[in-house]
């Protein structure tokens, strides 16, 4: 098959993923609504004192973003597995490594970029000092890219399993931790007036590494799940 038609396959897949996401607006908003609800829990649990909350705001928002990303990842391949379109991807002529990219991209747009862009609103509610807001958006945008790839590995490993939900959370969280350390670290550094670019650079490096190696793991995991 020529390169042009390969490109059209990827384009069609991307359009399909976007259409699927946009046809179900409630599902599209789920990560955002989850984010909003969990943010509410922290002032209730930790106490509403503004000076305490503003210290923890960056870390809180990062933890909530991590949780919502994890919950969104769980069902990434479930629909395709149920209706058989996953099998079509597996027997396609194009390498599976590239065929999963549209899934990752749309997943990141919904649970990563959308949340990152809305995060200043929640940062305002928790009283995050304004010096940290820009870095929060940047670190969430980069970090959620890593988390989308890692979450997709977990989702691919458990796609055929009936009780996969909790398992994905358990498998994927240890891998999210370095991202959380550097993401929340970037926001903290910015708030304290320290250089935050090294943190963002590390997140960028993790993102590049995840994007290069992750799809190989996802492809291998999907083939196993299809066998099982």
């Amino acid at each position: 098959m020529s390169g042009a038609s390969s490109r059209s396959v990827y384009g069609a897949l991307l359009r399909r993923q976007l259409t699927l996401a946009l046809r179900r607006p409630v599902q599209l908003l789920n990560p955002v609504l989850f984010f909003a609800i969990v943010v509410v829990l922290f002032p209730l649990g930790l106490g509403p004192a503004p000076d305490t909350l503003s210290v923890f705001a960056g870390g809180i928002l990062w933890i909530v973003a991590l949780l919502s990303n994890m919950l969104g990842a769980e069902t990434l391949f479930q629909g395709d597995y149920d209706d058989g379109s996953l099998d079509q991807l597996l027997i396609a002529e194009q390498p599976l490594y590239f065929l999963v990219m549209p899934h990752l991209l749309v997943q990141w747009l919904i649970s990563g970029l959308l949340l990152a862009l809305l995060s200043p609103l929640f940062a305002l509610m928790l009283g995050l000092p304004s010096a940290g807001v820009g870095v929060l958006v940047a670190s969430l945008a980069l970090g959620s890219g890593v988390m989308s790839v890692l979450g997709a590995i977990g989702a691919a490993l458990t796609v055929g399993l009936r009780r996969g939900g909790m398992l994905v959370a358990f498998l994927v969280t240890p891998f999210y931790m370095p991202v959380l350390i550097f993401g929340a670290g970037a926001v903290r550094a910015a708030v304290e007036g320290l250089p935050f670019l090294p943190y963002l650079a590390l997140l960028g490096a993790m993102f590049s590494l995840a994007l290069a190696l992750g799809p190989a793991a996802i492809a291998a995991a999907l083939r196993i799940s299809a066998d099982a």
Partner: protein
Amino acid sequence: MWTFFHKLGSPPWLYAIAGTILRWLLPIALLALGVGVVWGLLYTAPDFRQGNSYRIIYIHVPAAVVALAGYYVMAIAGAISLIWKMKMADVAMLAAAPVGAALTFVALVTGAIWGKPTWGAWWVWDARITSMLILLFLYLGVMALYEAYDNKAAAARACAILSLVGTVNIPIIYKSVDWWYSLHQPASIKFTGESTIDPSMLYPLLLCIVSFYLLFTCALLANMRVEILRRERRTGWVQRLVGSAV
């Protein structure tokens, strides 16, 4: 050489050779551990700052070192199983997970016991301690994933992928005490340059580390024998073996 390699793929042969190795290795490992621990606990001088409480090092450090090495054993066996589809490699991978998890747990518990007199707290959120806890979760994750699949052949391959993905975290755990300066003391034993530990304390410690490696090997082989029997329970050789044992 190659016949040896091919024989490794044969369950009865591997079961038998593992048994033979185990019979010789286990006494050696226990003897080394006994000598190392007694030497360390009774015949070394107290530390000039930590007094006698430092002596838990003779269990804590070997457990931690071998817990990390165990992850590599698991991941490399997983890679071999994925690449060459060797059934006995995924037996080794699955056998390594519980042993590694147990050693990680020992390292965490002895660390807590050591932490109480030296830092005044059972648990601190120090980089090395936290990353060892993550290591425990990585081991448990592999075990949980294996349990979740009904198709055990697919389960083993899924676990191999998961443990390979996890290797990314292991160098971070190794270097965490050097990269993030925190309560945990930096590594005392160095391959290059001067170690910061006195030779009289170093030699029993090295002996303990070696004995933990040997014990890990023994536990791994014993675990592999059980897994081989479980997998091959319907075959003639296992039924003859079990029949003759009864």
